[in-house]
């Protein structure tokens, strides 16, 4: 119980790790799978989403008392679409290369379910600072997950990391990992790894608790 309380108190870490949007909540799958064929694209996408998520969370939290309940979803979407339009022009201004690589997926941030989910589940009910922190945490957690996937796919599929060649000239890249099936399979592998790790931790915690009880019983008798 104390753990959940701690998680609520620290929205930033909660989003980054405990409730990681990709590995735990399995949300926002489209950009996760589509944009992760190179680390650079993955990081750019992650940062763009972080910006939108932080901005929309803050804005929605500011106006949460003014919005009637019936039209809240439409209002949220209008706010999110505004921030996405800003990001769209921002990325175009910063780097045309990245803009071309991300292509239609920048406007599609609007339809990223993480953002609407956070607005509905968190920012619509909580004060501004907490919502901003939550948006930042969730966004960076998303960026972290994207770069995990991007690393695997770029290293195996092209033999490079951030454009630097890692292996010698004899390396034959495993192109499948740059293609759509590779995206599905590498996400499956990451999810499996994280589930395994979590399960093992839970088991260890249970064992520790059991031995503590056993000790207490032993001491009592």
């Amino acid at each position: 119980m104390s753990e959940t309380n701690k998680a609520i108190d620290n929205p930033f870490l909660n989003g980054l790790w405990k409730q990681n949007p990709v590995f735990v909540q399995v949300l926002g799958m489209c950009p996760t799978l589509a944009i992760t064929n190179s680390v650079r694209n993955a990081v750019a996408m992650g940062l763009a989403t972080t910006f939108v998520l932080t901005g929309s969370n803050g804005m929605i939290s500011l106006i949460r008392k003014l919005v009637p309940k019936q039209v809240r979803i439409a209002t949220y979407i209008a706010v999110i679409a505004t921030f996405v339009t800003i990001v769209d022009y921002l990325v175009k201004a910063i780097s045309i290369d990245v803009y071309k690589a991300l292509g239609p997926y920048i406007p599609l941030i609007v339809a990223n379910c993480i953002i609407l989910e956070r607005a509905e589940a968190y920012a619509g009910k909580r004060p501004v600072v907490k919502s901003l922190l939550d948006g930042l945490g969730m966004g960076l957690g998303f960026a972290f997950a994207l770069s995990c996937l991007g690393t695997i796919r770029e290293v195996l599929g092209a033999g490079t990391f951030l454009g630097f060649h890692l292996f010698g000239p004899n390396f034959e890249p495993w192109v499948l990992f740059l293609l759509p099936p590779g995206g599905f399979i590498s996400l499956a592998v990451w999810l499996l790894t994280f589930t395994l790790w979590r399960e093992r931790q839970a088991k260890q915690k249970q064992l520790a608790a059991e031995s503590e009880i056993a000790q207490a019983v032993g001491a009592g008798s």
Partner: protein
Amino acid sequence: MNESLTHIFLDAFLINNFVLCVFLGMCSFLGLSGKFGTAWRMGISVMFVITVSSVLSYGSNLLLVWFHAQYLRLIVYIIIIAATVQLTEMFIRKTSPALFRELGVYLPLITTNCAVLAVPLFQTSRNYNLVQSTVFAIAASGGYCVALILLSLVRERTDLGDIPMLARGTVLTLVLASILSLAFMGFAGMGNGG
């Protein structure tokens, strides 16, 4: 008119299948493909929403260009989609209450389905005319529908299989989707001739 309608259709339906090759509409693809019954119903409603919103956004894009307000495109499109979803919901509730009860929870989710938003965006960036846009919308949403149905049929079988507890759920779905996507890669060759 530099692209033939057949080519647009085949391209959106098979070669660049929206779900398996371009990764759009993943959330509902992974979430709603558990049962064949839900899958085909969801597929049909998405097809309807995509086709209607594609035609509407074609018209509104003309208006926006007329007023030189292209920066409002995204906001206008998403509002059109939200309205179309609402319309579909009302329509289904009137005509078939049973179907409405079945789909109830999933209908609002169509709004945040990126496949729905992608169709108007793609047709604008590719400068399709009205007929081309409609064909594109039908083909893209048909491809979504087919992928959803295929995956749901496979998943109904694997539910009965002997699969380690750890790999059940999302992981298994992703592996199945990967295999399906590998099969769809085979259509890529069709694109070169067009």
